[in-house]
């Protein structure tokens, strides 16, 4: 599998009165064609900032400090606004967090999807477009009638499927979905997650799935990247990362998930994520790490290859 999206040494900061907040600080990550890559990490670790930077959607006080985002070999960070507009939706579509609540309440579903299509393809014939939109809605398991409905007539799970249909409208190569199921109940969540998996399988659409929920990553992703305090700490095949987590943070994160059928005492992670305006020297996880060594306080570990598919940024594994 070759690389579709290649993020190199990306840095995104936010301007604050107390100096820059280093939300994404030197991230290297590649998304392979046709895979489902999961991006995991707790709130405020920089996941959303990272994916927004990929589409150059960072707004002040945020700013991109440096790095490259190569999509099919084109550096998106250097691309013109015009070129970017062509790439967004057509090549990469982005489903932001709570986007199901961002549908226009006074516009019928079909017209909202037509808007998206026309913004990129120019004027389309209404009747043909409507037929196409109904097909799209059927693809995400909705009935054709939904095209003529308003958002308030739909439940949360249905609106989320409308958003997915919209993301599919222009046949993108890559879909970036940020917490697509967070506010939904478990049964609907399962339906949406399974649908994303089907889209990946049936159309070969690459998926970058961002969520804090490790169990969802375990259910559908092929590979997973673990992010903490603006850095990627570990990347690997999902089943390997879960069966043998390497980084102490990954280990603790997995062991802090309550499981059905087990009452084993859960261990949380003591302490708190660092203030990213003044991150600790060395490894950013060292103040909370149970295996901390002297070197961890001084030298930042880089993300190194552990085996064929696994990368980890931890001094326990540097030789």
């Amino acid at each position, binding site marked *: 599998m070759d690389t579709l999206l290649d993020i190199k040494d990306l840095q995104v900061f936010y301007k604050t009165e107390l100096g820059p907040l280093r939300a994404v600080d030197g991230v290297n990550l590649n998304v392979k064609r046709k895979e489902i890559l999961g991006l995991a990490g707790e709130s405020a670790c920089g996941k959303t900032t990272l994916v927004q930077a990929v589409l150059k959607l960072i707004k002040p006080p945020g700013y991109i400090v440096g790095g490259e985002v190569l999509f099919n070999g084109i550096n998106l960070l250097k691309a013109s606004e015009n070129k970017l507009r062509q790439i967004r939706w057509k090549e990469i579509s982005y489903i932001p967090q709570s986007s199901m609540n961002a549908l226009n309440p006074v516009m019928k579903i079909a017209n909202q999807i037509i808007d998206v299509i026309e913004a990129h393809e120019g004027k389309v014939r209404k009747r043909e477009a409507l037929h196409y939109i109904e097909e799209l809605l059927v693809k995400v398991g909705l*009935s054709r009638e939904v095209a003529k409905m308003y958002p308030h007539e739909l439940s949360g799970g249905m609106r989320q499927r409308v958003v997915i249909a919209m993301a599919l409208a222009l046949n993108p190569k890559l879909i970036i979905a940020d917490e697509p199921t967070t506010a939904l109940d*478990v*049964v609907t969540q399962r339906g949406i997650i399974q649908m994303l998996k089907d889209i990946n399988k049936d159309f070969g659409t690459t998926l970058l799935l961002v969520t*804090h929920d490790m*169990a*969802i990553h375990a259910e559908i992703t092929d590979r997973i990247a673990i992010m903490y305090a603006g850095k990627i700490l570990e990347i690997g095949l999902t089943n390997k990362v879960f069966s043998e987590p390497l980084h102490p943070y990954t280990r603790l994160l997995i062991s802090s998930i309550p499981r059905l*059928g087990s009452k084993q005492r859960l261990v*949380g992670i003591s302490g708190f994520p660092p203030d990213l305006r003044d991150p600790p020297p060395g490894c950013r996880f060292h103040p909370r790490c149970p295996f901390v060594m002297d070197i961890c306080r001084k030298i930042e570990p880089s993300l190194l290859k552990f085996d064929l598919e696994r990368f980890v940024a931890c001094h326990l594994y540097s030789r």
Partner: protein
Amino acid sequence: MSTSTNLLELREVTKIFSSGFLISRKRIIAVDEVSFALPGDKPIVFTLAGESGSGKTTIARIVLGFLHPDKGEVLYFGRNIFSFKKSELKNYYREVQAVFQDPYSVYNPIYTVDHVLYTTIKKYNIAQDDYEARELIDKALTSVGLRADEVLGKYPYQLSGGQRQRLLFARCLLLRPKLIVADEPVSMLDASLRAGILNLILDLKDKYGISFLYITHDLSTANYISDYLAIIYRGSIVEMGPIDKILQDPLHPYTKLLIDSIPKPDPNKRWRTKVALPPREFVAEEIIGCKFYDRCPYRMDICYRKKPSIKQIDSRIVYCHLYK
């Protein structure tokens, strides 16, 4: 369980909300004849679980006295809370405390977090003087795993979500409650902090004998802390009993679907079957029979026509026509 010894008992509690006006007026039965009880002789964690819109938060608000039910009673040690005298009500508000989902919105952002503790002490006259107040606060903070010097004097935004939630448990502790209604107390916290709050609930139950009415959509956290479980669907309890029994061998088709849909943190145990989501909104006309009828894989004719009655199976109850 004799009723007089029950800590809390709901008897056929019903709450109806109306929306719209005149011709478009709609009645929504948010809570439909819900009955359950928490025993008075030993502390337990009782979980009320259901999806959003199932009525679980409405039940919490009724128990806390914020809402009056349209029908039915809420008994506290055998006495209806809605016929309490003023002094009894004050006592009830002291002994029954609440912790909510969002640990930020509870605080007034212009005061330091001490405010929420001192107002509680003043309102209920718990301490003789400032010295005693401080002593009580220190003790309560220690019990919830906080150090006074790391939280007192700080503003709410300076604390993490976990610290803010712990502090609210400390506030509850000051009042020595018998029952804490905890409505999704961990759903906004990260996994690493969640474990700490769940352990805290277990500690408070064991050390201080406090019972919990834990309201959640998340059966994995419920499994970790609860003794009893009631599953609620569209305002009605569908299954209730000891939690281990229900999770190991669910009886109601909705409970089965719910348990099977929880994502498992194990890539080797992925879902094997698919769920179909409804292609359009089910329009709830007057439902006569079972509310799960339209989604149930085992539906029969009788389910459409007749409301399932209560069935006792081993130590639990279920409302489903599959069981005779």
